[in-house]
C-alpha cells in the first residue's frame, strides 16, 4: 500500500482539550498521513469537531478552552508555527456554507487580499484557478460580480472550498461539509474531495458512514466515555476499519447498533 507509506502530515500526541472543567477530548494520539483522506466518525458530542478545530487552532477562539499535549505539522509543533501561516496552510470548511456577504469574486479573492496581494491580474488568475479546482467555474463564470449569497447551498459550499483553496493550503479540514446539503450537492462535494486528495491532505468529520466508507483512505473512530469525554477507539485504513475492525465497539457502531 503506497498510502500507508505516505509521510505523516500531523503527529498528534496525548491531545487533551478542556472547556472550563469539562474534558472534551482525552489522550488522543494519532498520525495523519499526507495526501490522503482521513475521515473521523463517531456519535454526536464525542469531540470530533473539537479534534478537527485543534489542527488550525480554531479552539483558541473559544473562551476558556485549554489544550494540552502536542500536534506537530511537518515536524514542527503547531504552536510554534505563526498563526497566520498555520491557518493559511490549513484551510477549513464549515458545516454550514459561510460565504461572506460579498460578490463571488471578492469571496475567493478575500484570502489572497488578506495576505497582501493587490495585483488585479493575479487575483483574477487565482479566482479562476480556485473556482476550476472546486468545479464551480462553469456555473458562476458569468456571475462573478454578483452576491455569493444568491447561489444555491451546494454552490455556496463549493465556493467556500474554492475560497479556502485560493490561499493554497496543503491541508483541508472539513466539518461535516455536506450535512446541510441535498444528495446531489453532496455527491458533487465528494467528487471534488476525491480530486483534491492528490495535492492536499484532507481530514473530514462525517456523520455519514457510507460517505466515510467510500470516500476515505483512513478512518478514525471516536467515542465518549461515561464522563462524556471523547477518546480515540480505533484508527486505521478505511477498508480494515469497516471490514475487520479490531474493537467490538467499532463493529457495533459501524453496523448501526448505537450512535
Amino acid at each position, binding site marked *: 500500500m503506497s498510502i500507508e507509506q505516505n509521510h505523516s502530515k500531523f503527529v498528534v500526541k496525548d491531545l487533551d482539550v478542556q472547556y472550563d472543567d469539562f474534558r472534551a477530548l482525552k489522550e488522543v494520539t494519532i498520525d495523519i498521513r499526507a495526501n490522503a483522506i482521513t475521515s473521523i466518525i463517531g456519535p454526536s458530542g464525542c469531540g470530533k469537531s473539537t479534534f478537527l478545530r485543534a489542527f488550525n487552532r480554531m479552539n483558541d477562539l473559544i473562551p476558556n478552552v485549554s489544550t494540552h499535549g502536542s500536534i506537530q505539522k511537518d515536524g514542527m509543533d503547531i504552536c510554534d508555527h505563526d498563526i*497566520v501561516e498555520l491557518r493559511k496552510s490549513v484551510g*477549513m470548511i464549515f458545516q454550514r456554507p459561510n460565504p*461572506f*456577504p460579498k460578490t463571488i469574486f471578492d469571496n475567493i479573492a*478575500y484570502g489572497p487580499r488578506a495576505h497582501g496581494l493587490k495585483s488585479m491580474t493575479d487575483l483574477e488568475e487565482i479566482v479562476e484557478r480556485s473556482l476550476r479546482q472546486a468545479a464551480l467555474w462553469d456555473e458562476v463564470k458569468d456571475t462573478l460580480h454578483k452576491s455569493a449569497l444568491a447561489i444555491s447551498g451546494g454552490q455556496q459550499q463549493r465556493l467556500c472550498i474554492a475560497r*479556502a483553496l485560493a490561499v493554497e493550503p496543503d491541508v483541508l479540514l472539513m466539518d461535516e461539509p455536506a450535512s446541510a446539503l441535498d444528495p446531489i450537492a453532496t455527491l458533487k462535494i465528494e467528487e471534488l474531495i476525491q480530486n483534491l486528495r492528490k495535492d492536499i491532505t484532507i481530514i473530514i468529520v462525517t456523520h455519514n458512514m457510507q460517505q466515510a466508507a467510500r470516500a476515505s483512505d483512513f478512518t478514525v473512530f471516536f467515542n465518549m466515555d461515561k464522563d462524556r469525554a471523547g477518546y480515540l477507539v480505533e484508527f486505521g485504513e478505511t477498508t480494515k476499519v469497516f471490514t475487520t475492525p479490531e474493537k467490538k465497539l467499532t463493529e457495533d457502531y459501524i453496523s448501526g447498533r448505537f450512535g
Partner: protein
Amino acid sequence: MTTEVESILSQAKNKRHLKRQKTIQTFGFILVWVCGVLAVAAVLWIIGYVLSQGLPVINLEFLTTRPAGGVSGEGGMSTTIVTTLYLVILTIVIATPLGLGAAIYLVEYAGDASRESRFIALLVKAARTGVEILAGVPSIIFGLFGFALFVSYMKLGFSLLSAALSGAALVLPTIIRTSEEALLTVPRSYREGSLSLGATKGYTIFNVVLPSALPGIVTGIVLSVGRIISETAIFWVTLGGSYHLPKSIMNSGRTMALHVFMLASETRAFDKAMGTASILIITIILLNLIINFISRRLTARVTGKK
C-alpha cells in the same frame, strides 16, 4: 346514564367557556385598535396643527433671508438652516469614530481583555454601565456639562465647537449601543471563515464584520442626526444663539430648533416660529424616510438579495 349527563354538562361548560374567550378576544381587539388610532391621531394632530400654522409663512424669501433679530422677529431663517447643517456634520464627525471605536472594542476585544485582567474586566463593566446611564440622562445635563467644561473652563466660548463636543457626548450612547447591537448580529461564522483563511483579527473586523454591520451602524448615526436637529436646551447653553452665520467653528450660532424656541419666547413672531417648526418637522420626516431607504438598500446588499 350519569356519564352521559356529565358529558353533556361538560360540553355545555366548554361552549360557555369558548364564548367567554371570544368576547374577551373581541374586547381586546377593539381596545388595541382604539389605542392605535388615538396614538396616530395625536401625532397627526400635532403635525397638522404646526403645518397649518406654519406653511402660510413659508416661501422662498423666508427660507433664503437671514433673521433680522429684535423683538419683532423680522426676517427669515436661512442662517439657522446652514448652522444646523454645520452642527450636524461637526457633531457626527466627532461622535462617530469615538462611538464606533468604543463599540468595536466592547464587542470584539473587551471579552478577551477581561479574561486576562481583573482590572480591565472592571473597567469594561464600568464603561457598559456608564453608557447605559448616559443614554438616560436629560439633554440639559449634557448642556450644563458642556457649558462648564467647554464653554467656560476650556474657554471655547459659545461656539459650534463647544456645541458639537457637547452634542457628541449626548449622542455617543446612541451610537455606541446601536453599533454594538449591529456588531453582535454579525454571525460568528463570518468571523470564523475569515480567521480560518489566515486573516488577522483586525483585517476580519474591517473587511467582514464592519461591512455586514453597516446597516445598523448607519441607522444609529442617522438617529443621532435627528437628535441633534431636534435638541434645543443643550445648544442654548453651548451654541449661544447668535442669528449670524458662523464663520468658523469658534463662532456662536443658532440651529432651527433654537430659532423656534427664541422666536416663540422672545419675539412677537409666533407665526414665524411655526414656520420654522414646520421646516423642522419636514426635515425630521425626510430623515426618517432616508433611514428606511438606506437601511433597506444596505441590508439588501449585505443579504445578497439583488
